[in-house]
């Protein structure tokens, strides 16, 4: 019988420079962080880089963790900061930079994110693209507010505290995000969106 160590034990070991312990922590929470990153960034590679950056920052800051909150709460704070900083740095990096575009047929299987090319998965892929495109129309703060509220279940006050802004700003951001999503995903706008996606992919 395998008894998994608690987060606190793993953190203590990681604080004593045990990389294996930190990797175990990463294995526990990497999916959650990656989910946020994949919705926050438009490109899969950017999402991967950003999520790995979060883990590196967490490892760097681990000696300062004082067990006053859960490890994940602390990690989420680092994630928010990394996302917001990424926004600032990417602004400068992307000016005048060309982007490599990989053309992928719409019905092709993407091994990184989808298990098979079944109709359901293709639909999910389209849906995911639509959601990400809708979120991309928001400001990074609004996008992050929505993700934290919707996927992480954080309260408005918690988000406002973490992002150093007012609760009203967070509420407005979340509301705008839901409005955008509804406009994109509602049955009335389904056809043009799908067509647009098809053109972009092909």
């Amino acid at each position, binding site marked *: 019988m395998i008894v998994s160590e608690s987060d606190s034990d793993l953190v203590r070991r990681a604080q004593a*420079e045990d*990389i294996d312990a*930190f*990797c175990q922590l*990463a*294995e526990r929470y*990497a*999916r959650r962080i*990656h*989910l946020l990153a*994949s919705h926050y960034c438009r490109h899969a590679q950017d999402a*991967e880089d950003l999520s*790995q950056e979060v*883990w*590196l920052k967490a*490892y*760097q800051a681990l000696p300062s963790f004082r067990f006053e909150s859960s490890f994940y709460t602390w990690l989420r704070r680092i994630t928010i900061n990394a996302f917001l900083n990424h926004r600032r740095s990417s602004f400068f990096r992307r000016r005048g930079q060309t982007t490599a575009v990989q053309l992928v047929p719409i019905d092709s299987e993407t*091994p*990184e*994110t*989808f*298990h098979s090319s079944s109709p359901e*998965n293709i639909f*999910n*892929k389209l*849906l*995911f693209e639509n*959601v990400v495109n809708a979120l991309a129309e928001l400001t990074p703060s609004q996008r992050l507010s929505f993700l934290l*509220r*919707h*996927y992480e279940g954080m309260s408005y006050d918690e988000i406002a505290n973490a992002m150093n802004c007012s609760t009203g700003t967070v*509420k407005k951001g*979340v*509301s705008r995000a*839901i409005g955008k*999503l*509804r406009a994109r*995903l*509602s049955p009335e706008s389904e056809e043009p969106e799908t067509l647009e996606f098809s053109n972009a992919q092909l």
Partner: protein
Amino acid sequence: MHNCNDTRERFTEMVLDGDPRAEKLLDQCEECRAEFESLAATLRMTARLRETVTPTEAYWTGYHAQLRSKLEQFHAKAQRLRHAKAQREELKPGLGFVFASLRKPLRLCVKTFLLPVPVPLSVAVLAIVLLFFAVRAPQQPTPLPQAPVIVQVPVEVPVVQEKVVTKVIYRDRKPISKPSNRVVPENTFARSQETLSGFKPTDEIKLTVIKGGSPNEK
């Protein structure tokens, strides 16, 4: 009284938090209910992505391997930095000792020479010293300007040396014009005579007058 605007403003919170009062509010207006259902469906759809859009296990294996590699690199770099810092710390006490050893005798010297002297006495001593120099200063003969001593020092001066450069220049040679020694052949006239034989001048003389040459001409 039901107010559609107020209700719709609360939709986001009602959908996300699952407010139990939502049903009661929505029962009062069909339009608000339709709006709310649409919003809830959108969020359900996006929430479903959370479960479905997840990378495969193969992806995570590579992801964690890459992360481990980055962590090891970071760890190694941090250790190197710490080692370098420790070395600097070891050097620091040695240098500090050198500075301390220099500072101590300096302080002692200053302390040794600082003797407490009464102010009137010190003023009197200072006045005497100044008076001594004031009286003595005019008596000192002004030193005569000494004749400059000539010292011969060989100094190397760069001399511009002439350099003879031999250069071969090729010029285009013009053809030398020689005095012409052509001799007119004697039988030229005779030959022309031969060629004019049989020449007969025409009887009619054709003259063509060109008008307009001068204003008086008719």
